């Protein structure tokens, strides 16, 4: 065994905030090394430094014992580091072979490029991987699992000795995951080193030999996996930093609450299968589950974005067939979407314009928008949600992440919905704003409205939810009342499919 990668005392700050505070990491040949940590712990920053996407402020990178500093990811790839991204970097309308040898094409006659040779080589790579893919297939026609295998083949074609897999199973079915693990084991035997980033304990314990856990920009564990239990790892990931700030405040629950939303045996034909649940007045219902468990997909069904294949949705007892977002909004449903930059905001419009967009109907009289009403509305929203902006007339992109998120949240509360669905509403938000957002949610539910709250950060779920549904593989695996959850580790184990004693 030889050491492929050594990262020594890596430090990195972004605009004065330390993200990595001197992290060590090493990878041996023939080893699967798991890398774990909560959201924002610094693991993706560390990998981006290894890949040459960022440069570190302090520290050393040694590849095969040689000191290196990559200035871009192409250099890293040429030095044998391959990364399979969560979102694939394949070009959909080229064939598998064309993708694998993109920018490394084989020469043919008269300066042309030879697809034939590429197909032959691709076939050889797939054979060595022990998978069957026709290199002439268009990538768009492959399933997610096969696209991922193509990504791995692409890395191997560039003679990768180090492979970084980032949450590789999040969109795979169980048998596909097994096939991937078989492949990882074969690659390991060939002497590759594999860095395996995952939140899933069962997978880490199945496939990895060693694990490094990062919390708050520091390494907290680097140990052979055999010396640890899943509980040890979870405790290392969780730490105790949040617990003091995010305490559960038990709220008064109503007697005989009406059912606001009921979903019966919902299926979307892809991820969600026969999923049923109810949301009542004054209730905060949490969805816990790992990435790819179907959390976001359920919300998309209720919000009229994706079509329901079977099952029914009732709003306050009336069956509805939701075909568009307008219809859902009209029924008093709101969604604070997962990615605010992509789905939540028109970044180049002012904060004021973003805030008023879903409420224009009540800000006009005889079809004409009323400046005075708009100004009053904005002032009340800024006050109620304590949005900190130099001016609401400036582009919303100029606000801090936390205040951008407050604009998205405020714009929906401004429509006075009955049902508020929030998908990771505290992602990329500082702790102070986080606590404010949680208070907003509590107050809203106290008014007798219903909230569905999704978060990967379990302490948040535990801080606000009355009831938590645990999602796994597109279905509800467990329903937990808040008072029956003793601590975060218990919930963490539930999302992993185990129990914590």
């Amino acid at each position, binding site marked *: 065994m030889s050491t492929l990668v050594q990262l020594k005392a890596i430090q990195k700050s972004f605009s004065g905030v330390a993200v990595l505070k001197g992290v060590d990491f090493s990878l041996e040949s023939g080893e699967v090394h798991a890398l774990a940590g909560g959201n924002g712990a610094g693991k993706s920053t560390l990998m981006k430094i290894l890949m040459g996407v960022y440069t570190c402020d302090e520290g050393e990178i040694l590849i095969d014992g040689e000191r290196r500093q990559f200035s871009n990811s192409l250099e890293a790839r040429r030095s044998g580091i391959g990364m399979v991204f969560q979102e694939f970097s394949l070009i959909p309308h080229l064939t598998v072979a064309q993708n694998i040898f993109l920018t490394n094409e084989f020469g043919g006659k008269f300066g042309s490029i030879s697809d034939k040779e590429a197909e032959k080589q691709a076939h050889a790579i797939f054979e060595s991987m022990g998978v069957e893919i026709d290199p002439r297939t268009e990538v768009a026609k492959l399933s997610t699992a096969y696209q991922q295998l193509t990504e791995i083949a692409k890395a191997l074609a560039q003679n990768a000795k180090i492979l970084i897999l980032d949450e590789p199973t999040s969109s795979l079915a169980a048998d596909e995951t097994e096939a991937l693990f078989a492949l990882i084991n074969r690659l390991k035997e060939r002497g590759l080193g594999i860095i395996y980033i995952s939140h899933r304990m069962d997978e880490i314990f199945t496939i990895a030999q060693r694990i490094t856990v990062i919390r708050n920009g520091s390494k907290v564990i680097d140990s052979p996996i055999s010396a640890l239990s899943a509980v040890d790892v979870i405790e290392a990931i969780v730490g105790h930093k949040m617990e003091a700030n995010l305490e559960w405040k038990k709220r008064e629950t109503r007697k005989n609450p009406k059912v606001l939303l009921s979903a019966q045996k919902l299926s979307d034909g892809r991820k969600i299968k026969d999923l049923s649940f109810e949301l009542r007045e004054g209730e905060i219902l949490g969805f816990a589950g790992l990435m790819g468990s179907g959390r976001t997909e359920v919300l998309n069904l209720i919000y009229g974005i994706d079509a329901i294949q079977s099952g029914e949705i009732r709003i306050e007892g009336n069956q509805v067939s939701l075909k568009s977002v307008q219809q859902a909004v009209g029924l008093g449903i709101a969604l604070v979407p997962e990615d605010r930059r992509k*789905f939540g905001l*028109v*970044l180049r419009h002012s904060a004021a314009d973003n805030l008023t*967009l879903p409420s224009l109907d009540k800000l006009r009289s005889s079809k004409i*928008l009323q400046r005075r009403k708009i100004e009053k509305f904005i002032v009340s929203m800024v006050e109620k949600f304590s949005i900190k902006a130099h001016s609401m007339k400036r582009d919303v992109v100029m606000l801090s992440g936390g205040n951008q998120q407050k604009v998205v949240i405020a714009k929906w509360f401004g429509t006075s919905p009955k049902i508020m669905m929030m998908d990771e509403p505290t992602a990329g938000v500082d702790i102070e704003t986080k606590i404010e957002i949680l208070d907003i949610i509590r107050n809203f539910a106290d008014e007798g409205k219903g909230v569905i709250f999704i978060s990967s950060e379990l302490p948040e779920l535990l801080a606000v939810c009355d009831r938590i549904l645990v999602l796994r593989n597109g279905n509800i695996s467990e329903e937990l009342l808040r008072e029956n959850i003793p601590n975060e580790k218990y919930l963490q184990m539930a999302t992993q499919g185990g129990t914590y004693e």
Partner: protein
Amino acid sequence: MNNRVGSTVLEAVKNFQWRKNIIYVAFLLTIIFFSITLGHLGFNQPSNLLNIARQCSSIAVMAVMMTFVIATAEIDLSVGSVAGLSSVIAANALQHYGLVLGVLAGLATGLVIGLINGFLVAMLRVPSFLVTLGMLSLVEGGARWYTSSLPIAIDNSRFNTVFGGGQVGPIPDLLFWSLGATAIGAFVLNYTKFGRQVLATGGNLLAAKYTGVNTAKIKFTVLVFSGIAASLAGLLYAGRLESGRFQWGQGDALSVIAAVILGGTSLFGGRGSVVRSLFGAFFIGLVNNGLILAGLDVSQQEVVQGAIIVIAVILSRKD
């Protein structure tokens, strides 16, 4: 004291939003430049300036709706050919059925083509660039075929006055058409729910959709009205030139788009100003008029206009 005034001026210059207001600067500089260089040829005579206003009325009317179209991050290349077809259909109907039906027939032309464009783009999701490029050729060929390339004279003097040579005092009717269309367009874009939704659709399609904006309907509506505006522009050509002809409006899409982009509307959608598009149209009219007075021929004018468009697009990247 002096220093304070100086720094205030400096501050104002620094804060001046160049990209947004460059059209006003360009407009003024062009007038000053041509007044100096072409003053002796009568450039700055009121009659010449009013004539420029008359000549750019069709471009200005089309630019109003093109502002909406581009603000939703779409494009309508068919406007010029729609104006041409509308002029011949209106001319024919005027001769047979009189004023009201003539005007309605002209406007119906743009309505029908707009409906087709809108349907293909919004419902079938074909890129507007391709849909309207095909429509450009289809409509222009159709107009030519329908008239066997011949002009159709219009002798309805009422029509020719209202849509062409009429004046209120010294002000030509055609200027009222451009100003009226601009006023309505500016009002709708700035003070109605529809206008806000147009900008949101172009600014971030997904975010607009997730906020409950019916983005398909917005794109559809905008393209339908772009067709209607183009046929109104065709009526203005027909009235001014007292005839319908397939050539009226030929190649106008380029001028209209240039006017809108010069006016600061983002080619990538999400931002737009109808008033500045009007000045964009006037600017192009001024340049054309100046070049004619300076003795350049049509081909040379085309070269200059092409250069202006390229420069406008380069500027529009920077916002």
